[in-house]
C-alpha cells in the first residue's frame, strides 16, 4: 500500500494542484452465488487494488485484454458501480492526498483520533461514495461516460433531441426552445446538425451514433469523460474521424479523458499516460512514450509483440500461450507468471500451477484423485496407483515442468500413491517506481 500511495502522489507534480480523479486501492469484487440458498461461495476479483490519479487536461489510457477489469474500473470511476473496497476521490487536492499518504502509512491501530477525524473530513468532501447531495450532483455532472456499444446505450424509442437534451432537462439547465438550441449547438460541435434533431438512433450509422453519445456526454460541460472503447465497434476510417473529434473537443474544452481500449495503437495515439491492466491489477503505468519505447513488464512486451503494426513490413507477431486465469482464484505472486515467457522461481509458483501442468498430461491427470491442500504452496496430490505417482514425481524432478517452476520447488516427496509438493512461498507483487513516473510490478525490474 505504501509503495502504491507514494506512487499516486508521485504523479502529482504536474500543473494543477489537484487531481480530477484519484484511485486508492480500488477493489470491485463480484460475489459468486451457488446452491438453492444462493450462498456466496467466492468472489470474482474484477478489480483488485488499483491506484492512480488522473490530472486535469490529460488523457489516461487503460489497456488490457478482455476480462481484465478495465471496463469495470471505468464504471466504478463514473459512479455506475459501487466499489467493494478502496476509495475513489473526486477533485482531491494534492495537499490532502499527501496527508492521506502520511496517515495511511501508519498502521490502522496506531492512528490518533485527530488523524482519523482528518481522514473522515477528507472522505466526506471528496470520496465519491460519501458525497453529500449537492456535491454528488457536481460530481455526476462533471463525470460523464461514452459507452462502447452505441446501439445499446442510446434509447431506441427516443429522438436525438430527447437523448442529447435529457441531461440538460434533468439538471434543469434549459427548456423549450432554449433546450432545442442548446442541443443543436451540441450536435454541431460533434459534426452533426439541426437536420438530425428529430430522428431515431436506428436511422444513423455507427459513427454517427457514437457522435450522438459524445454530444450527450458533453451536454453538461463536464470536466472528465470516461471513454469505454468508444471506437472498437467502428471501421478504421470512421474510427479516425471519432478520434480526431475527441482530440478537438479536448483541445477546445480542456477535457480530461480516461480512455479505455484494448487497441494499443489507438491508446498510444490518444493517451498522455497509460496504465496496463492484467487480471484486475495494474501491472505497469507510465507515460505513453516510456511505455512504448521501453516497457518494463513482460505482459506489456507481450501485448506490443502481438499487435500487428501497419507501418512496418517485417514485424513478427508473437502470441502468449495459455489463457487468462480465473479471476475468482487469481495466481499467487505475480498474476502473470502462468503465461510469462521470462518467469523466475520467485514469481509465485503454487500448487495450482502443478495441477495445470498435469492437465496437459492426459494419462496422469486421469489418475489424480484428490489434492489435499495445506496452503497454496503446499499440498499432497493423491493418485490412483503407485505407478502414476512415481511417474509424476520423476517427471517433476527431472524438469518436465517449466524451469522456473522447478526452481521454486522446495520439496518433492512420494509416499505410496501420495506425492507431497511444496513450493517456496512469495509475497504479492507491488507496483514500484523505476524512475521517471514509470511504475511496474515485475520483480525483474523492481528488484523487490
Amino acid at each position, binding site marked *: 500500500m505504501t509503495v502504491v500511495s507514494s506512487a499516486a502522489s508521485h504523479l502529482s507534480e504536474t500543473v494543477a494542484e489537484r487531481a480530477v480523479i484519484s484511485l486508492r486501492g480500488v477493489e470491485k469484487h463480484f460475489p459468486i452465488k451457488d446452491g438453492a440458498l444462493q450462498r456466496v461461495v467466492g468472489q470474482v476479483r474484477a478489480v483488485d487494488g488499483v491506484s492512480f490519479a488522473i490530472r486535469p487536461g490529460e488523457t489516461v489510457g487503460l489497456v488490457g*485484454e*478482455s476480462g481484465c477489469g478495465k471496463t469495470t474500473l471505468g464504471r466504478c470511476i463514473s459512479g455506475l458501480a459501487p466499489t467493494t473496497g478502496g476509495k475513489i476521490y473526486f477533485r482531491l487536492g494534492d495537499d490532502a492526498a499527501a496527508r492521506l499518504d502520511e496517515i495511511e502509512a501508519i498502521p490502522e491501530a496506531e492512528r490518533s483520533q485527530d488523524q482519523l477525524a482528518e481522514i473522515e473530513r477528507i472522505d466526506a468532501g471528496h470520496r465519491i461514495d460519501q458525497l453529500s447531495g449537492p456535491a454528488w450532483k457536481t460530481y455526476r455532472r462533471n463525470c460523464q461516460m461514452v459507452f462502447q456499444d452505441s446501439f445499446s446505450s442510446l434509447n431506441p424509442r427516443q429522438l436525438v433531441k430527447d437523448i442529447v437534451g435529457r441531461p440538460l432537462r434533468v439538471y434543469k439547465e434549459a427548456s423549450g426552445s432554449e433546450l432545442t438550441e442548446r442541443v443543436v449547438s451540441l450536435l454541431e460541435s460533434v459534426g452533426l446538425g439541426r437536420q438530425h434533431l428529430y430522428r431515431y438512433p436506428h436511422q444513423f*450509422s*455507427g*459513427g*454517427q451514433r457514437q457522435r450522438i453519445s459524445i454530444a450527450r456526454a458533453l451536454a453538461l460541460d463536464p470536466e472528465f469523460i470516461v471513454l469505454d472503447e468508444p471506437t472498437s465497434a467502428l*471501421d*478504421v*476510417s*470512421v*474510427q*479516425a*474521424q471519432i*478520434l*480526431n473529434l475527441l*482530440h*478537438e473537443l479536448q*483541445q477546445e474544452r480542456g477535457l480530461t479523458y480516461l480512455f479505455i481500449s*484494448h*487497441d*494499443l*495503437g*489507438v491508446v*498510444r*495515439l*490518444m493517451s498522455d499516460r497509460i496504465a496496463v491492466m492484467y487480471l484486475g491489477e495494474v501491472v505497469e503505468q507510465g507515460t505513453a512514450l516510456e511505455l*512504448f519505447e521501453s516497457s518494463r513488464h513482460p505482459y506489456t512486451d*507481450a*501485448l506490443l*509483440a*502481438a*499487435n*500487428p*503494426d*501497419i*507501418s512496418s*513490413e517485417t*514485424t513478427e*507477431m*508473437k*502470441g*502468449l*500461450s495459455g*489463457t*487468462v486465469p480465473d479471476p475468482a482464484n487469481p495466481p499467487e505472486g505475480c498474476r502473470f507468471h502462468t503465461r510469462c515467457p521470462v518467469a523466475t522461481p520467485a514469481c509465485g509458483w503454487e500448487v495450482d500451477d502443478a495441477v495445470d501442468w498435469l*492437465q*496437459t*498430461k*492426459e494419462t496422469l*491427470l486421469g489418475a489424480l484423485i484428490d489434492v489435499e491442500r495445506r496452503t497454496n504452496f503446499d499440498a499432497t496430490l493423491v493418485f490412483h496407483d503407485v505407478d502414476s505417482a512415481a511417474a509424476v514425481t520423476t517427471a517433476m524432478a527431472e524438469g518436465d515442468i517449466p524451469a522456473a517452476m522447478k526452481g521454486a520447488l522446495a520439496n518433492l516427496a512420494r509416499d505410496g500413491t501420495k506425492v507431497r509438493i511444496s513450493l517456496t512461498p512469495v509475497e504479492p507483487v507491488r507496483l514500484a517506481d523505476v524512475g521517471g513516473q514509470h511504475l511496474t510490478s515485475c520483480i525483474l525490474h523492481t528488484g523487490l
Partner: protein
Amino acid sequence: MTSTVDGLPPASRPLVAEVKDLRVHFQAKAGLVHAVDGVSFEIRDGETLGLVGETGCGKSVTARSFIRLIPSPPGVYAGGEIDFWSSAARRKGEGPIDLLQIPQKEMLEIRGDRIAMIFQDPGKALNPALTIGSQMSEVLFQHRSQELMEAALEEDPPAILRRAARQQSSALERLLLKLPPWRGRMRRLSRRVDELVARALTETQISNPRKIMDSYPHELSGGMKQRVLIAQALACNPDLLIADEPTTALDVTIQARILELIAELQQRLETSVLYISHDLSLVREICDRVAVMYAGRIVETGTTKEIFSNPLHPYTRGLMAAVPSAAHKRGELAAIEGNVPELVDPPPACRFNSRCPFAVEICRTTDPRAIPIGDEHSVACFAYESGDRTELPTLEQWV
C-alpha cells in the same frame, strides 16, 4: 501436387478458384441491395489471399457465396460464376465446376470437405448442446463415412451400419444398434472416429484432446473454441479454407497464436486460404496477395508488397492513412470523411465518388473497370484510365 507447385512464382501457380463478375443482391423493402456487384478475383494454389474492406462492403457475402450459405430469399445470385478446381479434378485434368450452378447434392459434398470455413465468432459457430467430440465427428461421418467403415468394419457392412456411419439411422435403427450383434461394431466405429477427431485436435496444438472432446463449448475459452473450429475445418484436408475474420473476437495475444497456427497448418497441408479481414495491418502480416473491397466492388488487387508499398486507389490510400500508428500525431489521423453509400439500386458510378477528394465528373456517371498496372496489380479508378490524370497525390500528401 507439391512438385508442381513448389518453386513456381505465385503468378504461374494453378488456380484453385476464380470468381468472375459475381453479383449477389438482396431483396429489401427499399429496393434491391447490390451487396456484391461485379466482383472478380482468383485464388491460386497454396496462397493466402486477403479480402479487406470495411463493414458492409460485401466481403463476407462474397466468401459465403463460395459454399452457397446466402439465404435465399432474400438473397439472389444475380450473375457471375465461381469456378473451382478441386485437387482431384486437377489431377484428372478436368475443368472447373461452377459452384453457383452445381446441384445441392454436390454442394453438400464439397462444403466442409473440399471448401471449409472458419467463422468470425467461435461462440456462435459451435453448437452449445453438443460436446466438442460429437460435433467434430459429424464432419467425418458426413464426408469420410466410406473410409470409416473400411477401417473399422468388415468388407461389405450391412445397410444398417452404412446408414449409421452416415448418421442417417432411423429411430428404430438407433435402438437396434445398441443391441448385439451391432453394438460391438458400433463401438469400433466410434472408437475409430474418436481417434480421428483426437488427431485433428492435436494438429491445432490442443494439449489434452480427449478431455476437450468430452467438454461442451461453454467450458472452453475463446481461443480454444477457435482452435476447435480450425481443427473441424481442416479435418478433411480441404483445398480451400475460407477464414472469415477468425480472430476478431479474440484478444491480441491469442490472435497472434491463432494466426501462427493457421499459417503453419496451411504450409503443412498446402491449403489455399481466402482470408477475410477489416484489419489492414493483420493482412499485411499474413497474406500473399490482397484484394481491397469497397461497397460491393473490388477496387484494387495486387501482391501484399505492391499494395502496401504502392497503393493506388484513393480508398486504399485513405484506409491505410486512417490506421493509427507511431508516426501519427494526435488529432491528425487522416479520416475518410462521409459514410459508405447506400447500396439500394445504385446508379452506375464509382462507389467511392462521394468520399473521394479527387472525384471528377466521369466518376459520378460511369462504372470504373479494373485497369492492370504491371503484372500483379490492378486498380479500378479512372485516374489511371488514361494518361491525363495519373498524377494523383501520393500517400504522404494525402496524410
